[in-house]
């Protein structure tokens, strides 16, 4: 009888182990959200690293192996992964996670994207995303909404634990909503109103915290800075008294050297823009805190 109980116990244990969800995310930000919402009920891995430009990840076959075992793939969408995710999905030979299936969640289109082009678009305008700016995980409020979407999806895939996922997602959403108020107050106190960035990575963050972006160091999205454009930017910094340049840390920051020579008052800071983008950035809260401190000059 004891041995029967032991066998039953082992069976239950193995059953619960196989029930845990295997989630693959395209970015470390999405991994951080999914890991918090899923808690111990899922394993979560990211394809991109926090130090990499997520537009240009290579579709390594090892990612296909990871995706082949996934119950769910969570992607950013808005064409952030257009150059690499389709190859990983088809190479995975996992029908559960192909586009349109239950195991495929694309967050971007559902979180009210910014900078959705109107009218005709052309690649002469650079690396324009037809469905809007994809870097929404830099906005803590939209990340709260993303957590709710992920919680709902996990509940569909694992109904017995749906309440836990919903609770975790609500907690993350509430915490970030609360912290955003504090971050807003701190940024307002700095007096900084205008910030220049290298790429439009920080648009959501700056918009959330009512900071203007009078210029981007790239002359057009995806095009490296040219000397003519940098001279224009220096002119703007001087005339508009722009106090701060934030350079996303997967771009070459040396372009700011010339700007500092011409406009010595401007502060230039290289910042992480993703979870794991720098040591100690293990959660999105850490990332936003670092960005707020960069604006505060701490």
């Amino acid at each position, binding site marked *: 009888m004891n041995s029967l109980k032991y066998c039953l116990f082992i069976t239950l244990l193995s059953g619960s182990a196989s029930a845990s969800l295997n989630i693959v995310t395209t970015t470390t930000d999405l991994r951080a959200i999914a890991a918090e919402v899923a808690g111990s009920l899922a394993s979560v891995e990211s394809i991109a690293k926090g130090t990499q430009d997520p537009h240009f990840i*290579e579709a390594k076959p090892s990612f296909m192996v990871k995706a082949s075992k996934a119950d769910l793939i969570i992607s950013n969408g808005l064409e952030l992964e*257009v150059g*690499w995710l389709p190859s990983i999905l088809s190479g995975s030979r996992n029908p559960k996670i192909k586009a349109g299936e239950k195991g495929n969640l694309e967050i971007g289109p559902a979180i009210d994207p910014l900078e959705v082009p109107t009218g005709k678009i052309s690649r002469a305008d650079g690396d324009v995303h037809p469905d809007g700016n994809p870097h929404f995980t830099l906005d803590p409020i939209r990340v709260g909404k993303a957590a709710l979407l992920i919680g709902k999806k996990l509940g569909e895939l694992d109904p017995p634990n749906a309440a836990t996922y919903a609770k975790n997602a609500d907690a993350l959403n509430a915490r970030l909503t609360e912290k955003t108020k504090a971050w807003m107050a701190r940024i307002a106190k700095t007096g900084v109103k205008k910030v220049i960035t290298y790429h439009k990575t920080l648009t959501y963050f700056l918009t959330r915290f009512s900071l203007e972006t009078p210029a981007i160091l790239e002359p057009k999205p995806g095009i490296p800075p040219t000397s003519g454009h940098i001279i224009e930017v220096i002119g703007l910094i001087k005339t508009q008294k722009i106090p701060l340049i934030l350079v996303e840390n997967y771009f070459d920051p040396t372009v700011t050297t010339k700007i500092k020579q011409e406009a010595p008052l401007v502060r230039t800071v290289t910042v992480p823009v993703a979870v794991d983008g720098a040591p100690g950035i293990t959660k999105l809260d850490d990332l936003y805190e670092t960005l707020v401190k960069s604006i505060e000059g701490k």
Partner: protein
Amino acid sequence: MKHPIQGRLLAVALSSFLFYFPAARAASGKAFNPDLSANFLGLIRQGTGISNNRSNPDHNGVRLQEAEIQLSSDVDVYFKAVALFSVSQTDTTPAANGSTEYGIDPEEVYLETISLPGVTIRAGKMKLGLGKHNQLHTHAYPFIDAPLFQSALVGDEGLNETAVSAAVLVPAPWFSEITVQGFTPGNSELYRSRESGEIGALVRLKNLWDLSDDTTLEFGLSGTRGKNSLEKTATAYGGDLTVKWRPSEGGKYRSLIWNSEYLGANRKGLTDGSGNDVAKLGGLTTYVQYQFAERWWAQARGEVLGLPKPTEFARVTKQSALLAFLPSEFSGLRLQYDHTKADDREKSDHTVSFQYNITIGAHPAHAY
């Protein structure tokens, strides 16, 4: 061999494809139109060993190396389809008339399963898995031209036949894939049987290991057999080794690829013009691509054709250097120099080529 068809015929064919298909007509807006893209390669080349006759497809001077039009889409819940047509200059008859004529070729037209777990079945005309380079389209070649072994053993177009293919992911901790292909032997060089019932066979094993977050090692083996133009069973075998390095930090600005590939064949019964046996022939190529800035690459390649070497065959060695500037994902400019030496010739050949590579349309998903 491509059929000379006027360019407007291509336009008509494409229009028919896009507008005559019931799904495309019935769809609201453009939602169900296939992804459509066009690529073209312009080439300016001057070489001591290259023809000055404009009617020869590979001639000195300015020319359109190739244009490709690709359509791809999911067919339904079970299949996706790819149709890729290439247009390039064909031999003109008579060769001396000086005109340039172009032909269209269904370079790859196939359907592929999207709903089967663990396996991808493909059917249609496709580039077969004989090594790594054979699977590349011209616009994705690491150098402007193909390796020596490709044109010598499987022809300029490579081994690109009507086939059925199954690619299975082996359940291993690393990426391991076995591809089995059955094909009709209609190749210009290696396999060319008049018997319509003849089927060739190919097996490829591809493995890829992540040595670290920054470095991968890929190792592939391929073997194939089929009837040749003498209705004898020919075989070909290849091995490829690729190391890729792209650092997780700063990987936008620096990366390195080192590839080596060998292809050998036993072309049973094949003789040269004097009746000498030239059946067994193989070639090796090795190259390095180094990305030294966000949009700049420097590359070097060394090749040998003649491993093994038939007694009466002159071994050929070639060295190439290339500088590439890629303004965006959709355009590229490349300058290449080649030094080629055949054992039976006193003088070497020198070639300088400049190529522009342009893509418009749907954003491609890049292969690794």
